[in-house]
Every structure is written in structure tokens, then in C-alpha cells.
């Protein structure tokens, strides 16, 4: 028996983490903005001022951009994934059993009934989307419907329902935005510096100040390392959410065997999945781009190893 309503607590933690992450994102973006403005001004005047007016203006602009971007992606992020995967909404008559199972799991999770969608592909996969429990949807592939039996399908749907109940979909949307913005800003810094150093070398070399030089080197290091670190953090968070969703799934169904046998089938299947990009892969129950995962390091994988997930599920009494 797995504890009491742990997923209600998980929701609370996720709400708080989302806020903290949003705040960190804003501060980070503002700091980046300040660094850019500062470096630009130092380049232009050849003096390193303690307080840069350029920097302050750029910091304000970056903070506004990050808040605006997060708001937009929370409002529209879910729809984009659904559109990219070409998931079509269905009614109860189209797939009564799937519809029933989703209803059962929404009762077990105590969340409103989400929309049910089907993706017309032979690949075996499923994902949850939506930024709150009231606008959520669960999408499964046709291949999954045809291949899994009732218990297995229930395990998979419970896993997706866990993502909805734990508010993982919202959390991962904000994490995705954080990482995207850091990458974008890092790219901007590198471009700015390229332009800056060109203009300086055209001017004259004997006037360059060592303070501005150190600042530039610092910027380059930060701009190269920050996106990599952010990506590694995102993937670690993503893997953690997968483990939690597996555990919550068993808490809903009280039957680890359904999910275990479903994961085994998903691992064995190798049908290609069109319409999935690396931007959305972390939302699926198993990584839809498996060839990529096999080659990439464990550090940058969106999903834990399926064998590892099955082993953890067996520990829950499967």
C-alpha cells in the first residue's frame, strides 16, 4: 500500500517549484541582460563602470521578456504539443474502453475528466498536456490502443493522469521555457561579443582596457556553460517526474503489473513516431526518439532507462 493522497502534496510542491523556477528564470534573465549591457557599454567607452545604465535597461527588458514568454507558453504551450503530434479529440463512442479507463483514472486521481485524444500512428506511446487539471488532455497512439490489454492501458493512462494530477505538465512547460530562454540569451551574448570584438579590433588595440577584456572572457565562459548546465538540470527534473508519475500511477491503480507489462511492450516496440521533435519528447511516457536516446549520454536523457523504471515498480510490490 502506497501512502495516502501523496499526489495532493506533490501538486503543492510542484506549484511552489514552478513559482521558484519562474523567479529564478526572471533573475537569471535580468542578470544576463545586465552583463550584456555592461559589456556593451564598457566596449563603447573603454571604461568599466560599477553601475551601467545600459546594463540596467537591458536587465529590465530581459525580465519583462521572460515573464511575458512564460505567461504565453503557459497559455498556449499545451495546444502546440497536441497540434504537433496530430492528436485528434475523440468521444466516448469512438473508443469506449479508452474513454472508460480515462474516466476511472480521473476518479482515482480526483481531477476533472480530461479530454481524450488519439494519434493515428502504429507507434506505442502516450502523453499528457495542459497547464492545469481543468484544461488537461491525454493522448494515446492507435498502436497503443490495438496492442495493450485493459490492465496495461489502465497503467499507461494512470501514468499520464499522474502527470496531470502532479501538475508536471505545467512544471515542465516552465522548465522548458527557462532552458529555451537561457539558450537564446547565451546565443545573443556570443553574437554581441563577436560584433563587439570586431568593432574594437577595427578601432585600435593600444587603447583596450584590461577590465573590459576580463568581462568579455567571463561572458564567453558563462554563455557557453549556462545552456549546457540548464539542459542537464531540465533532463534531471524530467527523469525525476517520470519516476514520480510511475509511482503515482500505481497509487491510482493499486496494480503495478499493468504498467510493468505495458512498459515492457513499449520498450520492445520500435515503430517510428512522426510528428515528434526534441522539443516535445519529454512529455511522452517513453522517449519517442529512441535511437537518439540510445546514443546520447544518460545525463542528457529525458527519460530514465525502462529497465530501471520496471525494477522500481517491482519494488512497489509488482
Amino acid at each position, binding site marked *: 500500500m502506497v501512502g*495516502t*493522497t501523496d499526489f*495532493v502534496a506533490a501538486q503543492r510542491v510542484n506549484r511552489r517549484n514552478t513559482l521558484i523556477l519562474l523567479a529564478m528564470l526572471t533573475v537569471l534573465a535580468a542578470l544576463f541582460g545586465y552583463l550584456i549591457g555592461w559589456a556593451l557599454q564598457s566596449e563603447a567607452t573603454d571604461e568599466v563602470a560599477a553601475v551601467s545604465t545600459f546594463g540596467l535597461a537591458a536587465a529590465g527588458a530581459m525580465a519583462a521578456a521572460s515573464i511575458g514568454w512564460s505567461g504565453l507558453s503557459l497559455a498556449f504551450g499545451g495546444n502546440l504539443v497536441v497540434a504537433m503530434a496530430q492528436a485528434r479529440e475523440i468521444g466516448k463512442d469512438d473508443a*469506449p*474502453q479508452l474513454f*472508460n*479507463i480515462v*474516466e*476511472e*483514472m480521473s*476518479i*482515482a*486521481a*480526483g481531477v476533472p475528466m480530461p479530454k481524450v485524444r488519439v494519434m493515428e500512428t502504429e507507434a506505442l506511446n502516450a502523453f499528457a498536456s495542459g497547464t492545469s487539471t481543468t484544461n488537461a488532455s491525454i493522448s494515446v497512439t492507435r498502436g497503443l490502443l490495438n496492442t495493450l490489454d*485493459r490492465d496495461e492501458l489502465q497503467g499507461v493512462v494512470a501514468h499520464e493522469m499522474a502527470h496531470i494530477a502532479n501538475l508536471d505538465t505545467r512544471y515542465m512547460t516552465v522548465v522548458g521555457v527557462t532552458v529555451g530562454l537561457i539558450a537564446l540569451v547565451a546565443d545573443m551574448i556570443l553574437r554581441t561579443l563577436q560584433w563587439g570584438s570586431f568593432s574594437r579590433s577595427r578601432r585600435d588595440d593600444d587603447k583596450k582596457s584590461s577590465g573590459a577584456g576580463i568581462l568579455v572572457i567571463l561572458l564567453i565562459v558563462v554563455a557557453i556553460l549556462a545552456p549546457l548546465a540548464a539542459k542537464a538540470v531540465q533532463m534531471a527534473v524530467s527523469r525525476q517526474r517520470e519516476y514520480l508519475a510511475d509511482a503515482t500511477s500505481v497509487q*491510482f491503480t*493499486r496494480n503495478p503489473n499493468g504498467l510493468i507489462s505495458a512498459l515492457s511492450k513499449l520498450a520492445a516496440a520500435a515503430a517510428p513516431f512522426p510528428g515528434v521533435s526534441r522539443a516535445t519528447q519529454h512529455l511522452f511516457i517513453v522517449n519517442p526518439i529512441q535511437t537518439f536516446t540510445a546514443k546520447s549520454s544518460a545525463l542528457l536523457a529525458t527519460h530514465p532507462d525502462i529497465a530501471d523504471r520496471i525494477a522500481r515498480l517491482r519494488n512497489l510490490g509488482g
Partner: protein
Amino acid sequence: MTLWIVLGIVVLIVLWLITTYNGLVGGRTQAQAAWSQIDVQLKRRHDLIPNLVQVVKDAMGYEQETLTKVIQARNAAVAASAAGPAQAAPAEAALTQATRGLLGLVESYPQLKANENVKQLQEELTSTENKIAFARQFYNDSVASYNVRRQSFPAVLAAQSLGFGPMELFDMPETEREVPKVVLR
């Protein structure tokens, strides 16, 4: 100075009361919503069973003992449900047993399993059985966490006087029991 300290303590106590109250209201509302879901699913089962029994009867051509048992248990549960789900729990538990017998009957007869209408109703009944179980599970989990919250320190100091009494778990005994004699309405 002392006035400010007293004022500060009063403000803290009021804030604590507000958060405790809101937390308990949230927990109780969740449990009550879960409770009504159980009720909905139990009613749905009462509505489904006569349909499935009729379809099975038609497909088999004769009335089997399992079918009469199920109908009896169903009618007993309907009669008991007037008093509310808590009082109906034993009758509903008996109906769960009888329903399992009916679903087992469908499984063991190939001509039943092949019948489209039976298949459809079988899925509906299976799903309703699951929904009852999951609604009960969520209700009991909600009640358990509400009870823990109202009995935890320091909430325990205020819960009773704010009107938050303990809530009861919904038990449906799993043991086999005699199908009770019923007066049909």
C-alpha cells in the same frame, strides 16, 4: 510597546486560524466531492445491471441462477440506497460479489463473449465496478488525510471548535455474505 507585542500575537493567532480553517475546509470539500462520486457510480451500477441481465438472458435462452441472484442483490441495494451510501454499504458489497459472478458467467460462455451487446455492457459494468472501487479509494484517502490534518498539532486545538468533526471511512466488506431476503418494491 507591550500593546504592539499583544497586537502582534493576536494577528499571528488570527492568521493561524485562517490558514487552519482554509486547510480543513479544503480537505473536507475534497472528501465530500469524492463521496458524491461514489453515489453517482453506485446508481449507475443499479441502472446497468438489469440491462446486462436481460441481454444475457436473451443470449442464453434461459434464466440462470446467477442472474436471479444478481437481480436480487441489485434490488436489495436499490432498496437500501434510500438511507444513503453508508447504510447501503453491506448491500452494495453483496452486489459487488454478485456482479463478479455475472461477469465470470459471461467470461465462461463463448457464445456470450462473442455477442456484441453483451461485450459492450460487460465493458460498461467492468468500468463501473472499477469506478466504484476508485471513488471509494479516493474518498478513503481524502478522509484519512483530512482526519490526520484535523488531529495534528496545533490544528487539533481549533478543529473541533471550528466545527470540523471526524469523518468516517467507507468500508465495503469483501467477505462473502448471504444475499439478504428482500421485499421487492
